[in-house]
């Protein structure tokens, strides 16, 4: 048992790594620029670092979100690519430098040329009033130009335009840029493209995201992030609250519905499943089998819509409210828990039906099969032969040996609580985690999506671990040492 537990716990670690890596890949590949999101958010809220200039804000958020770091512990690149590439933040700029350095296979001259053109651009934008827009636009596209042909065209145009304006400083800078460009063009060593280099980065985005930027075990000294390992999932794009706080607010209803539905499913399915299994091919077995099968393949979103259409429709039967979880104007002041519950009850009935029916269908069906298999065992025949009443045989002997499906269903409760039933919560507008998931996707709130994915993954994993341990307790015959 202990050996098994240690083996299971050891498997926990690679699973955690895979889940965190997947979540990290999702968050890195999320479209849009997190820095811009943060800046526009603080601008629209009219608070925060308003007195700071824009580039200062950018730099602040870049360090805060750790985007100036290399992505992972190690990186593989061709020898032709400059190592400083991870310092370039703008994606289009990065691609441009990458393409340039690959074209000649020379990282140093490419970076030198890139710096020269950046300096030229910043010189132009700093004296914007005396400079024509055309010049600025050309300099701006020079920054992203990725082929030698395009660059030389741009340079030529800039040259003719600058000749007219007689601005000595800019002409000087343009000349340096041209010299750097000539240097860049003169030396070609394409063979460097084909030599892979591995470089290791001690501090990187993944490490920062997972462990925070303090000490990676104790978490002391963290300035920007404490890491997801300590529950810091970053800041929601929607309201700039910490993601973990939003989850804490939303998880209640999801937890309630998943727990309540499992309890109800147990209460209904245990008698049905056990009785159908004990009396195979009886009328009860046949009818329940067919209806359970139908329930099992009934899509929950269809049933939910049908229920809403019939029982929350002013034209047919307006028995239940169509959406929400509590009265529109909230609970009255000083209402007791019982009062709150009775006020919310009509809102909960339709969702609970939809939450419950599929798990009770699965549960009853698996219970029936388990009981069926046990009923043909010798010990049941012995129990019958010694004159035990039939219902006692079934519930005391057959049922207690068919507990495994109950455990499996229970293991799914907790991941369901965080992931929420995405579909049902959306249909019934229950303010839980599932609704939050869809809301986050519609508003591109990626930190929230990544957090939900990570936590659900960990809870699924824990659920499997707990259910395996419960298996061993419920059925001592299960030995895990040799599976």
């Amino acid at each position, binding site marked *: 048992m202990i050996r098994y537990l240690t083996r299971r716990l050891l*498997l926990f670690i*690679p*699973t955690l790594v*895979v*889940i965190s890596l*997947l*979540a990290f890949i*999702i968050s890195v*590949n*999320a*479209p849009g620029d997190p820095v811009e999101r943060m800046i526009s958010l603080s601008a629209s809220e009219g608070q925060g670092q308003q007195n700071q200039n824009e580039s200062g804000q950018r730099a602040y958020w870049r360090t805060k979100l750790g985007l100036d770091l290399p992505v992972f512990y190690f990186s*593989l*690149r*061709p020898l032709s690519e400059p190592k400083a590439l991870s310092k370039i933040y703008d994606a289009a700029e990065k691609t441009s430098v990458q*393409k340039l350095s*690959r074209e000649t296979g020379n990282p140093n001259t490419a970076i030198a040329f890139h710096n020269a053109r950046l300096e030229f651009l910043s010189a132009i934008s700093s004296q914007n009033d005396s400079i024509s827009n055309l010049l600025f636009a050309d300099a701006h596209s020079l920054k992203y130009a990725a082929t030698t042909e395009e660059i030389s065209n741009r340079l030529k145009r800039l040259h003719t335009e600058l000749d007219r304006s007689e601005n000595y400083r800019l002409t000087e800078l343009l000349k340096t840029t041209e010299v750097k460009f000539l240097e860049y063009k003169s030396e070609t060593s394409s063979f460097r*493209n*084909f030599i*892979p280099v*591995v470089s290791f980065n001690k501090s990187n985005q993944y490490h920062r995201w997972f462990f925070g930027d303090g000490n990676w075990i104790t978490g002391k000294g963290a300035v920007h992030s404490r890491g997801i390992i300590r529950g810091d999932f970053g800041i929601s794009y929607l309201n700039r609250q910490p993601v973990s706080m939003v989850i804490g607010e939303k998880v209640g209803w999801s937890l309630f519905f998943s727990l309540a539905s499992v309890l109800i499913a147990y209460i209904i399915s245990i008698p049905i499943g056990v009785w159908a299994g004990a009396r195979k091919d009886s009328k009860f077995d046949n009818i329940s089998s067919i209806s359970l*099968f*139908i329930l*099992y*393949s*009934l*899509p929950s*979103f*269809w049933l939910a*819509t*049908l229920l*809403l*259409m019939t029982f929350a*429709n002013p*034209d047919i039967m307006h028995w239940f409210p169509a959406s929400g979880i509590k009265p529109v104007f909230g609970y009255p002041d000083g209402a007791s828990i019982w009062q709150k519950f009775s006020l919310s009850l009509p809102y909960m009935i339709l969702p609970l039906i939809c939450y419950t029916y599929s798990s009770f269908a699965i549960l009853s069906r698996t219970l029936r099969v388990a009981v069926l298999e046990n009923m043909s065992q010798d010990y049941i025949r012995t129990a019958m032969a010694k004159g035990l009443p039939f219902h006692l045989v079934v519930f005391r002997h057959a049922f207690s040996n068919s507990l495994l499906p109950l455990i499996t269903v229970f293991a799914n409760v907790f*991941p369901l609580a965080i*992931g929420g039933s*995405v*579909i049902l919560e*959306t*249909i019934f507008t229950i303010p839980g985690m599932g609704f939050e*998931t*869809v809301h*986050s*996707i519609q508003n*591109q709130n*990626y930190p929230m*999506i*990544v957090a*939900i*994915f990570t936590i*659900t*993954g960990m809870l*699924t*994993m824990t659920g*499997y671990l707990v259910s395996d341990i419960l298996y061993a307790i419920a059925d001592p015959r299960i030995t895990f040492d040799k599976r």
Partner: protein
Amino acid sequence: MTKQQSPFRESLSRLLKRRTVVVALVWLTIMLAIALLAPILANDKPFYISIQGHNFFPSLSGEEEALITDPKTGIETRINFSDLSESIRKEATILNSPIHFSPHKSDLNNADYVGPFDQQYGDGGKEISGLEKHLLGTGRRGEDIMAGMIHGSRVSMTVGILSMTIAGIIGLALGAMAGYFGDNKLKLSKGRMIMTTLGILPAWFYGFQLRTFELEAAVKSSPVNLIFQLIISLVLFLGIMFLFNRLGKLLHIIKWFKKESFVMMDTIISRFIEILISLPKLILIISVAAISKPSLVNLILIIGFTSWTEIARFTRAEMLRVRSLDYIQSARSLGYPEIRILFLHALPNAIAPALITISFGIAGAILMESALSFLGIGVPPDIATWGSLLSAGKENFSAWWLVVFPGIAIFLTVTSFNLLGEGLRDAFDPKLKS
């Protein structure tokens, strides 16, 4: 004495004896036929049109319009197939598509939720009847629900079958390898094992990293080009891995590298499956759908790459049984290579559990696709699917036809695949044979 049947045929006839399975198969065949013929069945362009000696099959070819010249007068006329003018209608021989509406095309005469039993109007305020009508009613913009359902079956069937094909290939290959080789059959010298593992890095580098820009350009151009470029990358990747594997032989000069040890195939694959099972599938699909552009290809790939674990597990268990059978031993004694025995002799006998899981898997994939398009995640909004029709019905509960018909289609198709899976399980389960 009765004639001896092969076990497979025996199982097959047992399968077809079940009435539910036959009904399910009939329904699935109909659905498949509708899915295949969808553009012909429901299209606002006619199936066949013959005018002034020119013949067109617009719904088959998908062409929007054509330019014809009258052989006698030489006058050119432009024909818009979706909206034939009255003069062309009179002149030409036309064979209309059975449902002469396209999904998503609005019919302004019958806009704003007209039910199947309500009065419906054609051009000029005439009342229409019979097959001319919107048989299953219309949606808010007057789009035909029947046409949407027919084209929606195409999406559901494609997603279900293609994603499970991907899952089936991965699951069968990995499961068969895990079960057949186990932990103590595949031997490799230490030198070659180490070199192959080291080879992953350069293989990735030359196969994919160096080709980033080519691959990026291919993603933007066309699926065919993308597949072509991906195949080049894969060939490079595998070629370099193979090269490193061979290079491992050079290390054999040192004695330690020559020692052979077992490749723990079963352990590696089983652990990998256990890790994958712990991933929350729906949330994973939703997250990936959130960061990528909505497209059916993405959806199929994600469902395919996350659903193979069950297939692999069952195939592995079955393979453990098959590999100890006598005929495998005799094939081995004949000196066939292991890979050939595995895929040509052992795997065909271990395919039944995979078939069962695939059948349930298709049901799950269809359910997943319709749920996602119901939520409006992952499926492009301009494609009519059963799920998106249903979610349109959520906006207006008096339009019951928007909720009932797509729901029935989803329910029946999912149930049919589930019934087929149950039937297969009972037919192929050796426990029930006695």
